[in-house]
């Protein structure tokens, strides 16, 4: 039961940060900050997946959601920056 409460607390904590990050992602003027925030949301989500006893999902989310997706975002940002420069 204690473990359960620990998990709940962790989820609430990560959840609150995620929500704040989501606001940041949407509102921050710098796109790179926004992309990184989103990447962190994915990362926290994968931790929450672990808490929810879903290691497979956690791995996938970490690799794809916070890794590759972010990478592609940066490709695009880079391209945009180049074109503007």
């Amino acid at each position, binding site marked *: 039961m204690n473990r*359960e409460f620990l*998990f*709940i607390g962790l*989820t*609430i904590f*990560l*959840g609150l940060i*995620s*929500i704040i990050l*989501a*606001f940041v*992602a*949407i509102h921050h003027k710098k*796109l790179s900050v*926004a*992309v990184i925030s*989103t990447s962190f*949301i*994915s990362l926290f*989500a994968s931790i*929450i*997946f672990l*808490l*929810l*006893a*879903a*290691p*497979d*999902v956690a791995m*996938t*989310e970490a690799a*794809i*959601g916070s890794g*590759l*997706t972010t990478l*592609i*975002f940066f*490709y*695009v*940002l880079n*391209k*945009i920056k180049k*074109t*503007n420069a």
Partner: protein
Amino acid sequence: MEYITLGHMSLLLGISLTVIGFWGILTQKNIIKIILSFTIADAGVNIVIVSLGYVVGKTAPIIDNAVVQEAGRNVSASVVDPIPQALVLTSIVIGFGVTALMLAFAMKMFTAKKTLDINQFNELKW
């Protein structure tokens, strides 16, 4: 008290992220931001799905040898629901594909008009 469970909390988080994502989709003018909002909403939905499969106090749906010895490979009493997890795997990959495609569009659209403002892409209308 009955709402303060791991499932409820993560479900709430998932729903919140989804709504925030929708909010971003509707308010942001920058196409990249819209796509970001989409990924946020996606993440939210994924969390929702996994939380629905959570069973209080059970372990990951992997049969380790200890369990096998006890239950004769029947692990139905000890694991969480594996199906939502399988679905989420699919969903994450789909989300990646869609995001990659959207970003490709965004990049091309930017090259075409040198802007990312979605309001500028309305040559088809009425």
